[in-house]
């Protein structure tokens, strides 16, 4: 089955103001750079964005925040972004902060047809407010619901035109679960190949979860904290 689209413009067709989007990545690692630029171009607004982080001021989702395209963020950690903090404290931006593992599992559940699940994370904290509590094996857990999105936008290292994806290093992070949870999933890849060129034993995300795939270009892959040790 051929999922290939010509470019980012074609991939993002149908994304409209007010929609809920999932965007893969952890920090700036494994974010769909091409698609984020296209969302800026499309100037869609009132978006609900589900993403572990919110980028930095001038990169990643920070670009959408600067243009006030985001109405609500669902994330686990949003440091490193002054504009985000300003919009949140002034009340312009709605923010739902949820534990990272719960965020990952809520996306996975959304893609896997599990409407909700119990987790111990967040019990006894603000996160548990308004949520059902139930004890299992003598330990309290809270009920967390699944997340889905109108569009999930993920970034992979390699992909084939059937939509199969391979990720590199820690750039995998939230991308596989979000790919499962999108009504339409867009995958942008650094290298797009023909079916048969990827080893089926080594594919991380099966093409069934991907509706559109394109070869990205001009990846900046910015590093947030460059930590090194000296040569020799």
């Amino acid at each position, binding site marked *: 089955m051929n999922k290939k689209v010509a470019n980012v413009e074609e991939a993002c067709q149908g994304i409209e103001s007010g929609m809920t989007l999932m965007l893969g990545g*952890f*920090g*700036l*690692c*494994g974010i769909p750079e091409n698609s984020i630029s296209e969302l800026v171009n499309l100037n869609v607004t009132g978006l609900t964005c589900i993403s*572990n982080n919110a980028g930095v001021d001038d990169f990643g989702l920070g670009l959408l925040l600067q243009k006030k395209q985001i109405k609500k963020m669902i*994330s*686990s*950690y*949003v*440091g*490193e972004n002054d504009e985000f*903090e300003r919009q*949140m*404290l002034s009340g312009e931006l709605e*923010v739902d*902060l949820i*534990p*990272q*593992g*719960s*965020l*990952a*599992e809520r*996306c*996975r559940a959304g893609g896997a047809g599990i409407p909700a699940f119990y*987790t*111990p*994370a*967040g*019990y*006894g*904290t*603000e*996160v548990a407010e308004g949520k059902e509590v139930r004890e299992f094996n003598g330990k309290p857990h809270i009920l967390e619901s699944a997340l889905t999105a109108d569009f999930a936008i993920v970034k992979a*290292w390699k992909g084939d035109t059937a939509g199969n994806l391979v*990720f*590199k*290093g*820690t*750039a*995998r*992070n*939230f*991308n*596989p*679960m979000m790919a499962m949870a999108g009504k339409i999933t867009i995958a942008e890849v650094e290298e797009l190949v023909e079916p048969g060129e990827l080893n089926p034993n080594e594919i*991380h995300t099966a093409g069934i979860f991907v509706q559109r795939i394109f070869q990205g270009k001009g990846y900046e*892959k*910015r*590093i*947030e*904290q*460059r*930590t*090194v*040790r*000296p*040569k020799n």
Partner: protein
Amino acid sequence: MLSKSQIAQRIAQELQNGWYVNLGIGIPTLVANYIPEGIDVEFQSENGILGMGPFPVEGTEDADLINAGKQTITALPGAVFFDSATSFAMIRGQHVQLTVLGAMEVSQNGDIANWKIPGKMVKGMGGAMDLVASADNIIVAMMHTNRAGASKILKNCSLPLTGVGCVKKIVTNLAVLEVVKEGFKLIERAPGVSVEEIQQATEGDLIIEGDIPEMKL
């Protein structure tokens, strides 16, 4: 009084052979520098790597290879990458034997606060709530008091909580404490620090039984 590196050094003495360990951002990260000889542990970073190695040699850093603090790292032989759901399955499923993390406050019933100062700082909890809710063995690395000298070792936390009743052991710049039913049990003193000084810096109930030994670093 211990430096931040010395706090990490003391915590490293707790490592046991064969443990998988998750180190939080800040002082906990430094624990990796002090693994005792003969102890084989593997570090998990919740963004998706097991077998995390040291920082890369200058010029070899890779944007696709970072830790949970977004720092560039390396992968040791035998390392593995995985997605975020699998990562937290390792954590929630108690496959990770030790979690070391920082705190703004801890209370004597084992509550911890480290993610939010209302009206001032709201960065989010990241993976901390999942880690503290599930880990069997949590060590908190922190300073005993804040910059103004006020105790961070409290009867009750004043900040929004990250987890309840989860902290077992605390290593500060002044002492090693264990959370027991009656309060904070003083286990060791930092070199040159007296029991009285620790008592003064501790707002919560401090339990002192017999002679309190000095830490060996």
